[in-house]
């Protein structure tokens, strides 16, 4: 219910924008870089996807917590598997911090694999902030798998449903290789929602979902004994190694732990590093807000500081629990090096990934 006057004012403003099409003047604060300005966040996907939801969820918090209270609007530029929007951003964003881009790994991978249509250089862009989206891998009880070790000798063949090998499925597919699991992979689903339904119907028996969906949609299945959670993707420690447990689902082992349990040693080599790179880009920094090269330090600092303040915002914590799984925002300056490092894998890692994609999944480079 709308009770207090503040909300009425907000509604009034909203209606005014709708009908008269005039933007409201943002609150002024003279000293701040963003005072009296507005930020446009480009989302290179259609409305309704993960990047769109994340960008829109964060927008009002950014408005509230960036010094100077800029107006923050979200603009969808879909097309070309997100390459159209990212290329648009690269061509149009001026280094003034007034245009940002919010992406997922679907934008990063074409760049990483040198797709000819990826006309944007992420290595030159600045990371404004990031937000994690952790994966939880679970199986059907019909497989007889109760714990990670059972994955090597399932009661029925493991069948995994995915969207496309070069998208958010990539780290999970690499994890299966790393753990030497015998999995039949069926790609071609239109989204992770239909994949979950296919799992529930029994068409597949091995699946992963992002933490917010896991917590809301899969945990009820676990309680009904229709799904068995197995592992998470893991989380980086202070040195950036993907060896810690996911803070949102701390009772599940990570891929790192599962490997150690199955094979008795720390995972290493190109396979492990390929998993680390793909996983970090897809999950740990699942949502990344980019600023163009040459963005003034004042602008970046304002966003970094806003990220800290947003994390302390009760409302963000409360709503974030269900929207994003409860991960805090990460300041760009603390994660930029890790993001850039993951985007520049060593030659053997690149070779491993391209070989896997080409030989097993028919991707042409």
């Amino acid at each position, binding site marked *: 219910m*709308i009770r207090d006057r503040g909300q009425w004012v*907000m*509604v009034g403003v*909203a*209606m005014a*924008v*709708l*009908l*008269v*099409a005039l933007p409201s003047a943002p609150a002024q604060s003279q000293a701040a870089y963003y005072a009296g300005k507005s930020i446009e966040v480009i989302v290179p996907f*259609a*409305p*309704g*996807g993960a990047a*769109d*939801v994340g960008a*829109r*969820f964060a*927008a*009002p918090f950014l408005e509230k917590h960036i010094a100077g209270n800029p107006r923050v609007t*979200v603009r969808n*530029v*879909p*097309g*070309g*598997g997100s*390459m*159209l929007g990212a290329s648009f951003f690269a061509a149009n964003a001026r280094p003034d911090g007034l245009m940002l881009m919010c992406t997922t790994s679907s934008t990063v991978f074409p760049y990483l694999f040198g797709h000819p*249509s990826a006309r944007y250089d992420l290595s030159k862009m600045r990371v404004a902030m990031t937000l994690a989206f952790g994966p939880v891998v679970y199986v059907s009880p019909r497989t007889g798998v109760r714990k990670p070790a059972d994955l090597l000798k399932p009661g029925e063949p493991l*069948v995994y449903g995915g969207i*496309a*090998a*070069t998208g958010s499925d990539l780290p999970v597919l690499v994890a299966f290789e790393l753990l030497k699991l015998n999995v039949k992979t*069926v*790609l*071609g*689903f*239109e*989204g992770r*929602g*239909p994949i*979950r*339904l*296919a799992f*529930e*119907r029994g*068409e*597949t028996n091995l699946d992963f979902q992002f933490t*917010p*969906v896991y917590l*809301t*949609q899969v945990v*009820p299945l676990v309680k009904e004994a229709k799904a068995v959670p197995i592992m998470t993707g893991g989380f980086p420690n202070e040195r950036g190694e993907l060896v810690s447990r996911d803070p949102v689902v701390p009772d599940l082992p990570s891929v790192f732990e599962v490997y150690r349990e199955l094979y008795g040693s720390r995972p290493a080599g190109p396979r492990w590093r390929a998993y680390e790179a793909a996983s970090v880009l897809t999950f740990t920094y699942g949502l990344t807000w980019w600023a163009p090269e040459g963005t003034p330090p004042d602008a970046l600092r304002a966003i970094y500081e806003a990220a800290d303040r947003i994390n302390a915002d009760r409302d963000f914590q409360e*709503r974030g*629990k*269900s929207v994003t799984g409860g991960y805090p925002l990460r300041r760009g300056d603390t994660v930029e090096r890790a993001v850039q490092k993951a985007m520049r894998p060593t030659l053997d890692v690149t070779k491993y990934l391209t070989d896997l*994609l080409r030989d097993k999944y*028919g*991707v*042409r480079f």
Partner: protein
Amino acid sequence: MLEAAVAALAVFGDPLRLLLLCGGVLAGFLVGMLPGLGGIVAVSVLLPLILRLDARTALATLTGALAVVYTSDTISSVLVGTPGSPASAPTALEGHPLAKQGQAARALSAAFLSSLLGGFLGVLGLTLAIPVARPLVMVLGSPELFMFTALGITYAGSLLGKAPVRGLLAGVLGLLLGLVGPAPAAAEFRYTFGQLYLLDGLSLVVVALGIFGLAEVVSLLARGGAIARSVDLGSGWMDGIRDVIRHRWLVLRGAAIGVWAGILPAIGATAAAWMSYGHAVATSRDRRSFGKGDIRGVIAPESANNAASAGDLIPTLLFSVPGGPAAAVILGALYAYGIYPGPRLVAEHLDVIYVIVWSFALANILGAALSFLVSPILARVTYIPFARVAPPLLITMVLGAYQATRHLGDLVALWLLGLMGWAMKRAGWPRAPLLIGFVLAKPMERYFWLTVKLHGWRWLAYPSVLIVGVLLVAPLVWGVVRGLRRRSRPAVETPPAPRATGSLRRLTTTVSAACLACLALALWQGMGFQFDARLLPLLVTVPGVALAGIQTLRAVQGEPPGPAENGDDGLGPDRLAVLIGDELHRFLQIAGYLLLIWLVGFHAASLVFMLAFLTWVAGMRWLPAVAYAVVSVGVFHVLSFGFALRWPAGVLVWR
């Protein structure tokens, strides 16, 4: 359950909520009326505004906007033959001829009433689905979804028209257009010709606008005069209502098709409208008036598309799986509120679902009332010389098409598809199979491969698959049987249509030969794809090339286009040659406008285009033309600002 329903109704006791719902309805109404803008625009424009409200108010506003789009989109379909949204393309096919015959009022009132009823039945379906949807969706695996998309394709069969070869070829072309972009089952992009714009495939909005809208506008322009031939508004409003009462079971069947299409994730409102239209044609004894303005062809799709937008909400609310693009935006809004739809929503927040149910019902009433209020005024458009109506309409279409990806490729695609639609129309190719093929190509391919890979070949023996298989095969068998019976009866002698000659023959030959060339190119390119990406293109193009060869031979021999699709019965060859030349001329003018947009941007180009068009083509005097053009572009500016639309900036413009 009843308690939750009543509690949800109390939500609307707050006058502000009611006001916002009305605001949503108004936004959806406007967006639906403008060709090219649809539910996604309506919902996404509201999104930033409403995310500051509480969840229930926000949902009421969003649902309000979504619910009326398929009511008001009828207006431009009927009046100017340009689909207000892709889902009302069948209405344009049948309702617009009625408007030309001076029966716009009848077509509109029948459409609004069936939209309203379809919406009601849809939302009733949504309410009833809550307890049964779970087991139902659990039954619908990939094999079943594949069978249902295949069933949808066979509906196109009843829309082939009098020339089955051309009808089949149109379907083949539609399937091919639908294959552009990423293959679902393999890491391969098909038919993108190195264009970034084509990487995601063609947008449905652009295809529907081009094939039906632009083609219609151009032929209306060339014909000259006003849209309506006979000036008789008359008491058509009551006629339309009587039509709906007479065809009440068709409304019900259309709504059932709509709800069902909504539940199926692969099939949306557009496919629902066409399937419902195909169903109306297939179940009618007398099919002669279809394509020339049959009220049944208005009632069936209008009932279905409103029902489908309610049906779309079933998987969205019960499984967190969006039933369509607009439903995906609503789902995103729910996520942003931390509401994750699914079984838990039904158990814990049943009132949220009922807020949506009530909003949907309320919005349908408001939308229909608004349509009834506004359209008598708008219906007068059909009596104004069309050349004066056309420029703002063209600008709206261009702006609408540009919203698809906000890439200039949208404009090029619109123009090319418009030319294609026009050529098909003139050469007597039915366009309905094309749109059905386009809409269902990818889901059919996707579910075919998922089925084969997940189930091997066992699925062919599944009982559910067999049941749908019977539904699929029965009408085909029935059609053959009926055809044989008819053949055994002495045929009624119809005088053969005169052979096509002169420019008409040149046109039919060009169209057939171009189709053959396209299919041959597609076949040749298709051979280079990986196996999982190659199967459907080859299945489509191999028979396609053969059919196109036959068709080209026939065209060379002077096969007449046939009276039904031509729309200009009884024109002499000389008059027709002039008309065709005139229409091609209009396409060149539009191309000039698009080129100008690329150079100097949307505003300046639209202003120049309108001025030039109004003075030269429409014969207006300078002063009123300037006033008209300035006011129109001003309105577009305000409108596109209000709806957060983007427009091309122009390469020569300093930024």
